[in-house]
């Protein structure tokens, strides 16, 4: 039994090692906040929510179910699910970008708090799990667009605030950030 466990553990360790060392390379954090292209890190997809709401409007649903033949309605529903799925993927990417920004702030901070970092990591894990489950709901067709709207508002809110805060930090550079590591 010990042999089986240790062999599996060794294989898992080797796989983890290869992935950590040679997995899809992660872009290094910028060497300073002013070198960052903050725009690239801010959420994009949630900005298009108005168009999505228009596409997924309830009036269209009522119209299609009353007027269109059954097969057309099925196609329309499938297409609606596809758009929702794509939009949810976009929101996931947005959240990922925000997470990246949070980690970047931590990486470029001379001091970070353990509890804070742990909480951000935990929030990321929670979001990813929920995101998968919501994805499943969309796949099974039991998800309303107005619920997605709430999610989009949240991401957009975080984005707006971060943008303001980052520009406040970056404004007086480099005098305000001229601090080197000494460890």
């Amino acid at each position, binding site marked *: 039994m010990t042999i089986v466990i240790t062999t599996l553990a060794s294989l898992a360790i080797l796989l983890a090692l290869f992935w*950590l060392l040679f997995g899809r390379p992660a872009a290094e954090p910028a060497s300073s906040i002013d070198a960052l292209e903050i725009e690239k890190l801010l959420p994009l997809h949630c900005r298009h929510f108005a168009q999505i709401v228009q596409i997924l409007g309830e009036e269209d649903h009522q119209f299609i179910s009353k007027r269109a033949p059954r097969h057309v309605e099925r196609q329309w529903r499938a297409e609606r699910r596809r758009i929702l799925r794509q939009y949810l993927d976009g929101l996931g990417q947005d959240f990922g970008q925000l997470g990246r920004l949070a980690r970047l702030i931590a990486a*470029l901070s*001379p001091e970070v708090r353990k509890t804070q970092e742990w909480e951000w990591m935990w*929030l990321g894990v929670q979001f990813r799990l929920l995101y998968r489950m919501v994805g499943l709901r969309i796949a099974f067709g039991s998800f309303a667009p107005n619920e997605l709207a709430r999610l989009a508002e949240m991401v957009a809110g975080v984005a707006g605030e971060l943008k303001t805060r980052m520009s406040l930090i970056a404004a007086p550079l480099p005098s305000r950030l001229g601090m080197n590591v000494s460890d």
Partner: protein
Amino acid sequence: MGLSLFQSSQWAASFLIEVLILALALRRRVFRQLPFFTAYLGLLVTSEVARWLAFEFTGINSTISFGTYWTTQGILLLARAAVVYELCQVSLSLYAGIWRLCRPFLIALAVILVAGAEVSTGFSVHQLAATILTAERGLELTVVGILILGLAFCRYYRIGIQRHVAWIALGLGFYSAVQVANNSFLQDTVLANFPIWEMLRLVSFNIATVFWLVAVWKPLPALRPAPVLLARGEYDRLAPQMTVRLRELNTRLLEMWK
């Protein structure tokens, strides 16, 4: 009884590779960036000479050879642990906040794993060799555990690992991971009779040395410039805002799920 012709040839080949790596490391001035790794290479060559002398003059099954082998093995293992810590430090210390965050975790993990190794060795009712193998397995697990945790920090914070550091880490991790499994095979009364496990130990070490050779083959890249850090207090100003928003986002997503 000394070494057989095959064992002598294999030992000579391994020894030559180790000397070559040490020579290249000294030529590339690796000691400026990685002093512990350079010292480890020096220890490796020295211990090979010590083992060869013991095996050749007292016989491979003598008590002196046994003592020499396991003493040098213990020293090398400790040196490998120091190298792993050094690799984590080299990769993370430019990011002061992250390094301060990571260091206690590395130390805590090392303490836990060493204590675990100590406990499992204490419970071992086997003969001396089996007890040593249990201890070695626990310590190898410590080495590779520290390495993986350090690399996970690098990955999470997207801190790039320099090419030579990656190859050295791969060599250390690969050897330790193989030894964790190998030591379990060697403790099994039936499986231990097959010579393949001892061969696996040697071959895995030779593979590790090839990785280290790759690491020092080319001149080392220049040291990375230190990043310009945020002013003290910026993190404290930014973090709560982001946390509140991210928490809300998760709560909302949770509501949607319900």
